[in-house]
Structures are given as structure tokens and as C-alpha cells.
């Protein structure tokens, strides 16, 4: 029989949460920067740049994130003949993964802004960059809040995959606790509940942000 699941065991799980958050946040920031670049390349006037962006997006959206993680983790080891610790490998893998998804979300948001908005700005003597900055991006940002937060929630849960290569975040901590307590039916529901406690407030935040922006702009919802 294993140990009982008590305060110490719970504390062990709680201590793993910062790693889940750090990985999610790191991937979000890195992927966010990458995503902005990809979104702009996707609408760029130069065709080779658009192809480059499309190729990257298709590659990372069309393959399982687990395979991406393996390829990055073992790939670095094989290519450079060095054993990298899991942390930089998972961060890189999730950054690339996030960049592809965020880039596609944001491109969609930019393209959702009606053509006449660009034209109206153009007719006020604004050049392409100013049309984008003053008129299109602020509106695209508003549209992109729900899918971006949706992806953030998805990302936090997906980082659990990192457990497989031994990176100790929340899920890996749960596995380790299960091994010592032999109480998977206590440990895993607790782990799941902890993910929920992280993700749910994010969804609430997104909803209230959306409502506040709509109210400020006098947008009338028809439902």
C-alpha cells in the first residue's frame, strides 16, 4: 500500500502549478510574437512570404503536438549531439505550436474587418501601416479576444503532454504522486480540478472584457 493522500501530497501538486503556468505563459509570449509575424506575413503583398507562413501553419496544425514535442526534444539531441534538459525543449515546442495557432486566429481577425474600413482610412490619407495600426488592428483585437482566450485555455491543458518527456509540471507531478500513493482516483480528479481552477477564471475574464468593450462602444447585441 502507498502513502495516504494528505496535505503534503496536495502541496506537492500545488508546487507543480507554477511550472504549468510558466510553460503556458512562455509559450504564449513566444508564440504571440511569432503569431503576430505570421499573421502579418499571411496578408503580406509578397507571395513567397505568404507561402512561408502557410507552410509553417499547416505543418504545426496538421501534426500532433506530441510528435512536435518528440521531434524538438530528440531532434536537438541528435542534431547537436547534446542532451538538452526538458524545459527549453518543451518551451520551444509549445512556442512553435502556439505561434501557428495564434497567427491563424489573428489573421482571421484582421480579415474579418470589412474592406470599406481600410478604404475609409485610405481616403483620409492614411498609408498601409497607419490603416493597420489605427483602424484595423484595434478592431481585430476586439474580435480576437474570445478565440485567443479559448486557445490559452487549450494551451494550458495541452502543456500536460510535456509530462511524457519527464518535465515536472502539474500532470507529471500527478503521475509521480500516483506512483507513491497508488490512489489514481484521488490524485487525478484533484489534478483535473486544479486545471479547472486555472482555466475557468480566464474564460470569465474574457467574457467580462468583451462585455466592457461592447458597452463602451455602444454595440448592441441581438441575443
Amino acid at each position, binding site marked *: 500500500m502507498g502513502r495516504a493522500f494528505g496535505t503534503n501530497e496536495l502541496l506537492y501538486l500545488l508546487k507543480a502549478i507554477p511550472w504549468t503556468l510558466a510553460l503556458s505563459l512562455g509559450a504564449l509570449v513566444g508564440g504571440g510574437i511569432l503569431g503576430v509575424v505570421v499573421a502579418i506575413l499571411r496578408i503580406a503583398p509578397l507571395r513567397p512570404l505568404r507561402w512561408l507562413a502557410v507552410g509553417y501553419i499547416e505543418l504545426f496544425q496538421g501534426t500532433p503536438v506530441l510528435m512536435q514535442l518528440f521531434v524538438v526534444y530528440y531532434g536537438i539531441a541528435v542534431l547537436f549531439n547534446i542532451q538538452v534538459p526538458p524545459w527549453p525543449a518543451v518551451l520551444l515546442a509549445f512556442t512553435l505550436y502556439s505561434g501557428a495557432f495564434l497567427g491563424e486566429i489573428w489573421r482571421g481577425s484582421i480579415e474579418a474587418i470589412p474592406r470599406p474600413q481600410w*478604404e475609409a482610412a485610405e481616403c483620409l490619407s492614411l498609408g498601409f501601416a497607419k490603416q493597420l495600426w489605427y483602424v484595423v488592428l484595434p478592431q481585430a483585437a476586439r474580435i480576437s479576444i474570445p478565440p485567443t482566450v479559448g486557445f490559452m485555455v487549450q494551451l494550458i491543458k495541452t502543456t500536460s503532454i510535456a509530462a511524457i518527456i519527464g518535465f515536472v509540471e502539474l500532470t507529471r507531478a500527478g503521475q509521480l504522486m500516483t506512483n507513491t500513493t497508488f490512489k489514481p482516483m484521488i490524485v487525478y480528479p484533484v489534478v483535473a480540478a486544479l486545471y479547472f481552477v486555472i482555466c475557468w477564471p480566464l474564460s470569465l475574464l474574457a467574457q467580462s472584457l468583451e462585455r466592457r468593450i461592447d458597452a463602451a462602444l455602444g*454595440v448592441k447585441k441581438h441575443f
Partner: protein
Amino acid sequence: MPLLALRSISKRFGAHRVLDDVSLAVEVGEVVAIIGRSGSGKSTLLRCINGLERPDAGTIAFAGAEFAAGSRAAKALRREIGIVFQSYNLFPHLSVERNITLGPTAGKGLSLGEAKARALKVLRMVGLEDKIAAYPGQLSGGQQQRVAIARALAMEPRLVLFDEITAALDAELIGEVVRVLETLAADGMTMVLVTHEMGFARRSADTVVFMHQGRIWEKGPPATLFNAPATAELASFIDAVLSVDPSAQRRVG
């Protein structure tokens, strides 16, 4: 010397010839109303004037300087030519004041202080100075269109284009927009309007242009065109407008 002179403007969309050798001169202070059925090329002609559409052939002369249609220099004419659209196209995320100051500041390099003074001035002209802090979503269609007119005026254009600006409005809101147009016309603004407001065209236009199949079919003072159309096409167009909209009968009057 006319302020604007279009010479032999032609434009195709695929095999469809939208504009066929259109030439038109607009004098300073002149109000030109373009009428015609939908698909006759009216809006495309307007969009060619300020470079939103690129004509396949023809030249545009503005204040004596001639440009190849669609050239970079022709696009720079936007600083001198304002446009108001059918669907207002206000920026929904910006206040009325910022909608108006954006062009003068970001487009023309005016200081924010100067631009704000100008915003107040143009809002007074359209009677909406009390809406300066509102957002477009909080205004009626007629108010939004008046803000759009104010936005165009704040650029201090020498010519303003109006693209069916009352077409999307409920009947009871058309009057307030038409009154603004009439004030502008009376103040000597040079204006080219694509319009279905026959009453306005008759009262305020100096010249009415009837377009048909991508060409200027008839052109002249409103009294001549409305009372004695020279072609069967214009006569049937006027009949059609009157039968669809009985109130136009009174307005054409």
C-alpha cells in the same frame, strides 16, 4: 479651368465594360449630381476619381495638373478630395471626435489641438456638436452619415464625392442628411454626388449627369433633363423612379 477634368476614363471588370470613355469636367463651386440605374457605372466613376478603383485608361486633371489614372500621383489627390460612402464607414472603435481628427492628424500631420478645433467646427456644420464624445454605435443612421460628412470636411477638401449617401437610410432620416448637403451646396462647396434623391438633384445641382451602360448618356441643367429628357433611356429612368417612389413625384415636382 475646371477643378476636375476626367478624360476618356474606361474601366472593365472582366469582360464587363463598366465605364466606357467617360469625360467630365467639374468647375469650382459646381454641384454635379450623377443619376442612373444600378450597374450603370456611377459609383465606379466616383471611386475612380479618388483612386479607390484603378481605371484601365484615361487621365484625371485636378486644378490644372494632369495625372495618368491610377498613378501614384493621382492617389495623392486624396488629400484634396473627400468621399462619403453609402454605408458611412465610420470607425466603430473610435469616438466621433477621434473619427474626425484621425485623418487630419495621422494623414495630414496636423497637431491634435488644431484637429480638435476643426472637429468642433465641422460638427457644428452638421449640427452634431453635442455628439462629440459618442461612439458611432450610439448614433442613428442619419447622425452617423452626418458625422461621416463632417469627417470628410475636416480634411478641408477642395472637392467632396458622395456615393449614394442616403441609400442606406430609413426614409425619415434622409431629410436631415439632405439638408446638410443643401447647406454645403449653398456655401459653394464643389460636390459630385451619386444620388437617388431626385428632389435634391433638381433643387441643388448645377448639372445633372445621367449614366447608362457605362457612358454619360445625357448631361445638362436639372430643369432640362427632368422636364425634357432627350433620350428614351432617361425618360424611362425618370418614369421608373417616380413609379417606385411616389414621394419623389412631389420632390421632383
